[in-house]
């Protein structure tokens, strides 16, 4: 599978559209255990990214992702800004100067992104954050690939793991981020960041699935 700069741009554009669509839902989730701004934050950030994309449309994937990450850092604020910003920046380093990449590169980029998030947020799995969506998704992707299933099937397994991870945050006690202030009261609510991470995972899988398997 060949993932090109064009696909990456479509991926980011679709995230922006999906975030706008789900803005109220994400904010609603953040009302329950946070400060009612997660959807607003991401929408502000990805709208800014959307406006920036044309300036890098003909650039390499690293530059596209770096611009995305920097724009998120500069416009989102809050916790999710530095976290998603760092994720895109780390992915951009993994794909620097590239105009296309394959499944292996994808895994490496996702791992770099997750590492960036964990470093920036000083958090682990099980703390009721976006990590609880992303980490199991990457694990599932790697496991599937080690079983040699095709890329699309692997991604679908990964997405199922992402969904399960997102839902796993419901019974969790938050120990990081704003939800941690709630203590026991954080239990029973799905984490907004885990939800936006699942949203992005969905878009990633959709984008890859839309790629013609000609070069497969």
């Amino acid at each position, binding site marked *: 599978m060949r993932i090109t700069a064009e696909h990456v741009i479509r991926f980011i554009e679709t995230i922006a559209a999906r975030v706008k669509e789900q803005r109220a839902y994400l*904010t609603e989730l953040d*009302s*329950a*255990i*946070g*400060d*009612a*701004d997660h959807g*607003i*934050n991401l929408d*502000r950030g990805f709208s800014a990214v959307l406006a920036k994309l044309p300036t890098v449309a003909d650039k390499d994937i690293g530059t596209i992702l770096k611009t995305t990450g920097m724009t998120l*850092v*500069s*416009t*989102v*604020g*809050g*916790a*999710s*800004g*530095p*976290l998603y910003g760092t994720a895109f920046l780390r992915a951009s380093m993994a794909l620097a100067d590239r105009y296309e990449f394959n499944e292996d590169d994808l895994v490496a980029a996702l791992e770099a992104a997750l590492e960036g998030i964990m470093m*920036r*947020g000083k958090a682990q799995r099980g703390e009721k954050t976006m990590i609880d969506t992303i980490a199991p998704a990457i694990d599932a992707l790697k496991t599937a690939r080690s079983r040699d299933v095709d890329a699309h099937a692997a991604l679908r397994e990964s997405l199922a793991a992402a969904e399960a991870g997102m839902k796993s945050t419901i019974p969790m006690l938050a*120990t*990081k*981020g*704003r939800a*941690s*202030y*709630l*203590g026991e*009261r954080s239990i029973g609510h799905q984490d907004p960041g885990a939800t936006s991470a699942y949203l992005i995972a969905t878009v990633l899988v959709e984008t890859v699935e839309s790629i013609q398997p000609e070069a497969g």
Partner: protein
Amino acid sequence: MKKLINSPETVVGDALLGMAAAHPELIQVHFDPDYITRAGAPVRGKVGLLSGGGSGHEPMHGGFVGYGMLDAACPGAVFTSPVPDQMLAATKAIDGGAGVLHIVKNYTGDVMNFEMAAELAQMEGIEVASVITNDDVAVKDSLYTAGRRGVGVTVLLEKICGGAAEAGLPLAEVTRIAQNVNAQGRSMGMALTSCAVPAAGKPTFEIGDDEMEIGIGIHGEPGRQRMKLQSAREITEMLASAILDDLPFNRGDQVLAFVNGMGGTPLIELYVVYNDLVKLCGDRGVTISRNLIGNYITSLEMAGCSITLLKLDDELTRFWDAPVHTPALRWGR
């Protein structure tokens, strides 16, 4: 959700324009990235003090920029940490050669964004120190969690460190005093009503006509406990005991008592709370030697209050008493 605004998108910018128009002799407002500096910044040879955080807590922080307090403030979107670009630009604008202290409230977003800004500023050769306030006793403290929130102590710290910086103390000393203020101060808050984030368009939480939230923060985040409404005396007792027991404050201690309104509670009620607080502290042998009563660290239109107690020593008292001239806090000149 009824507010005196033009749109959720413009509320922060409109208010900044209003501040710029109202206080040109005290502050200068910069846009894109948004930050407020003290008129005439940087002050040569003086440590620069920078704070920032989400908007919706007015007058904090912008209202505290000026002589004897902050050199700059970075306002984020409502309840959302500002971004590193703002802190970096503000840090550069106020560095008078003696370095800059970042005053950060302990929220994951604020901490991360300030951290990124500090790294960038240091890369540009500016000496940056940071202090993180985490005075909210409603939150259990632990090495394994995000820890306590920074709330009321932040205001007191900004004033006291402002006095220290104005007196010419070097960055290391101002930082030491900042850490001391944070170490000696504790807070807790409660809400009668929720606030509504303008862009969200509705109250962050629903609450009954006979209920209150104890242990709320300043972002409309729910508190630790929902309970039936009680009297000012009982509420004050609940907040003050948690605070007094935590440090702990002891018989013979001198304190600064700060009764803060969350934005929708009128002054008459804050004085009722202060009256109950005086009695409670008296019973414990704790003497209130300084006080601050009013809306200083708010949560939009939330009704409720927070109490902060800060153990005073001579140094903290002296810098608290030092002249200050900002839009929201002024004395001695």
